[in-house]
């Protein structure tokens, strides 16, 4: 079925990750700039060919994978133009020579994850109202009970003692009122002073207007919070004057102001300016709208799923949403409707007038070069304060990157990322740091430890047995002499143009990279997903490190989006290069430098499945010898199942 192609043998010392079928020429970067540009161009064209084969199936993902510029262009409303060029390239590659990929049920059923939250079937999107109450973590989510695509949205519900072992509960809320007849959409929970819970959520009314509604547990003594009551006076907020009826959604958790009122923010837009509206309330039933906004950024489009919370400048624990003071910075985060990217910025909150000012306006919320929680597939994220363990925890919706036909055939679509703790990076002060919750370590089974030196141009099979459910923690060191090569040689230009997306993927070799792991690989590496570091000479001759995931060769299938994801990662003096990778069938989550840069990818191999899934370590650098120290754990399933009395 899949076409067989001549492949370079695995032990080849020449560019081990390249394949004869592809047009890629292993390009070196330690050459004159013209050749570098050629490499970049051929890499770009290749990425474009792969990615645009399906006309950017998932708009922003592919845009990010292809070129960063595309997303800026879209925001500048040149979408028509960029789409046109994509179409031309797409038709070229749709020349009938590539074989279409018929997914069979064996391949599709392998894709289901073992320890990520996903419902038993059908479509899921945004996380809703996460909270901890009476010994249980609660998770609600946007769910379609009828199909594996978005629609007919209700609130699904699940509980867990440890954020990992989830138990499915009955639906929490369905569209049974006029004010949410067309959808029970995203919302957030707030704990009142007496410990009771209020939930604010967006309803799409019978006339398709987006309004905010109040709900609360029907029985607060029920630790499972099975039933929810909708406030009889709903909706509590309707779109204000000047705001579109369909541009008003996703209310946040409320925080206490110094005057003792509760305050929430709701994302919206005015023309192309993304904004965050501000409301005060004492009872969650009536609200005063502020004249001023919490914040706004031009040319960013609609702000969905706004999140606003404090982080400590000095401590590693999370903070309750109401905390303020000199030891604290505030994060404003929004999901950009236009590009499907979650952006955040760090700044200062002024409670007296309800404004927030970013520390660095050039990377304000929604700016394409600004900060993201995750440089891969990650959207509609939401944090909550876990008062149980004093952490701030981040949930993120991870959609599919395959075709809807495949989703319909396999019967489901979307997973949630592993919940992450979020804190300010006290060492850089300029970014957040995220890490999978420690409870995930309870899934670790047997492990194997490795320590090896890997010369340039080497691929090493790592024998860990089954390789579809793994937790990998690794540390890399580049030999000192090799570092000096790149510093010393004047002919090595500062590589200011490098980015994961236009760097050509993992087969483009530089002096000091790429090196890392190929996960979800088959024996011959005809399918594999490299997760790697790429070290370049940056401005002022300092080293600049990038962390990338290359999905362009992750599968033979051609109806799947296969971008190269990633970003720069700060590496401070004296730090070794560290990465952690969670592999769980069709999802790969990579964390560099303790979570300074994170990348989530969706991967759909056709051959590297079941017993054929392998793990490799590779060093595709030209000059550098790498020492890798790492541990690989087999991961157990979380056995997510419907709640029953036995689970108490």
């Amino acid at each position, binding site marked *: 079925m899949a076409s067989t192609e001549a492949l370079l043998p695995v032990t080849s010392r020449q560019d081990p990750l390249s394949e004869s079928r592809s047009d890629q020429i292993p390009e070196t970067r330690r050459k004159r700039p013209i050749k570098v540009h050629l490499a970049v161009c051929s890499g770009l064209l290749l990425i474009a060919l792969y990615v645009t084969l399906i*006309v950017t*199936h998932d708009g922003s993902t592919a845009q990010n994978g292809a070129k960063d510029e595309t997303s800026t262009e879209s925001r500048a409303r040149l*979408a028509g133009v960029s789409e046109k060029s994509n179409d031309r390239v797409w038709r070229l590659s*749709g020349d009938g020579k590539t074989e279409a990929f018929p997914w069979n049920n064996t391949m599709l059923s392998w894709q289901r994850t073992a320890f990520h939250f996903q419902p038993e079937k059908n479509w899921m999107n945004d996380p809703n109202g996460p909270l901890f109450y009476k010994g249980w973590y609660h998770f609600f989510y946007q769910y379609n009970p009828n199909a594996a*695509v978005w629609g*007919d949205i209700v609130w699904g519900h699940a509980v867990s003692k440890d954020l990992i072992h989830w138990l499915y509960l009955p639906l929490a809320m369905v569209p049974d009122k006029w004010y949410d007849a067309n959808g029970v959409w995203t919302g957030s929970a707030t704990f009142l002073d007496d410990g009771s819970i209020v939930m604010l959520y967006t309803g799409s009314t019978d006339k398709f207007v987006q309004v905010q509604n109040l709900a609360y547990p029907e029985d607060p003594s029920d630790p499972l919070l099975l039933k929810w009551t909708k406030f009889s006076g709903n909706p509590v907020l309707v779109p204000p004057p000047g705001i579109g009826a*369909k541009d008003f959604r996703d209310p946040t958790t409320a925080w206490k102001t110094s005057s003792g009122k509760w305050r929430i923010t709701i994302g919206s837009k005015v023309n192309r300016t993304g904004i965050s509206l501000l409301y005060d309330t004492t009872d969650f039933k009536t609200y005063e709208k502020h004249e001023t906004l919490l914040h706004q950024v031009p040319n960013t489009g609609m702000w969905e799923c706004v999140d606003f919370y404090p982080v400590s400048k000095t401590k590693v624990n999370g903070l309750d949403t109401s905390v303020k003071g000199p030891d604290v910075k505030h994060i404003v985060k929004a999901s950009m409707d236009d590009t499907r990217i979650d952006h955040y910025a760090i700044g200062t909150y002024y409670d007296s007038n309800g404004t927030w000012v970013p520390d660095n306006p050039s990377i304000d919320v929604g700016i394409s070069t600004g900060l993201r929680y995750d440089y891969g597939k990650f959207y509609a994220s939401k944090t909550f304060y876990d008062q149980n363990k004093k952490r701030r925890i981040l949930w993120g919706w991870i959609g599919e990157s395959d075709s809807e036909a495949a989703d319909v055939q396999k019967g489901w679509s979307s997973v949630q990322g592993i919940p992450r703790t979020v804190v300010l990076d006290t060492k850089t002060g300029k970014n957040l740091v995220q890490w999978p919750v420690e409870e995930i370590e309870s899934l670790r089974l047997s492990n194997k430890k490795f320590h090896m030196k890997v010369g340039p141009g080497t691929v090493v099979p790592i024998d860990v047995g089954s390789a579809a459910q793994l937790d990998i923690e690794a540390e890399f060191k580049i030999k000192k002499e090799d570092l000096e090569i790149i510093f010393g040689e004047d002919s090595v230009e500062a590589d200011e143009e490098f980015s994961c997306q236009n760097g050509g993927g993992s087969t483009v070799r530089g002096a000091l990279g790429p090196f890392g792991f190929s996960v979800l690989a088959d024996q011959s590496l005809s399918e594999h997903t490299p997760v790697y570091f790429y070290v370049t000479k940056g401005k002022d001759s300092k080293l600049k490190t990038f962390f990338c995931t290359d999905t362009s060769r992750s599968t033979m299938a051609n109806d799947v989006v296969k971008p190269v994801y990633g970003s720069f990662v700060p590496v401070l003096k004296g730090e070794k290069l560290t990465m952690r990778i969670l592999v769980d069938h069709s999802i790969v989550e990579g964390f560099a430098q303790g979570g300074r840069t994170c990348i989530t990818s969706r991967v759909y191999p056709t051959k590297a499945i079941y017993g054929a899934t392998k793990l490799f370590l590779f060093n595709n650098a030209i000059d550098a010898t790498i020492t890798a120290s790492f541990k690989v754990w087999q991961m157990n399933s979380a056995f997510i199942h419907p709640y029953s009395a036995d689970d108490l």
Partner: protein
Amino acid sequence: MKMIVMVMMMMMMSEGSMIDQTCKQTPDFNLCVSLLNSDPRGSSADISGLALILIDKIKVLATKTLNEINGLYKKRPELKQALDQCSRRYKTILNADVPEAIEAISKGVPKFGEDGVIDAGVEASVCEEGFQGKSPLTSLTKSMQNISSVTRAVVRMLL
């Protein structure tokens, strides 16, 4: 009488310009204009309305293509495998992509509409490639790809 004709002409011109303005921002102006003008709702629709008209065209084309596929089983039995794949893909367009896009545009969450519309183009392409250069459906596939990219451009204006 002349006044009425003039007013009517002015009305037609100004209503045409909404379609004109919208279609200028798509990859295929002529296709866009002809699709929208062929629907009576086109002259008075806002951008959401125009998007819904185009999604309807996708639905109609998918139905037509499915009928063509069904007819081909008898005429070209040697193509059964590829036809099966195409049947699955076009059923996805009809049963998943189109309803998703209609619901999303109507309710003001256009990004899911964009997903559905893009996917329609993907499914058509995958179907076509199954014939490895000898497709009996090429002109229908190309239509779907074109309408999908025009519709997507219109949906993006809502984001």
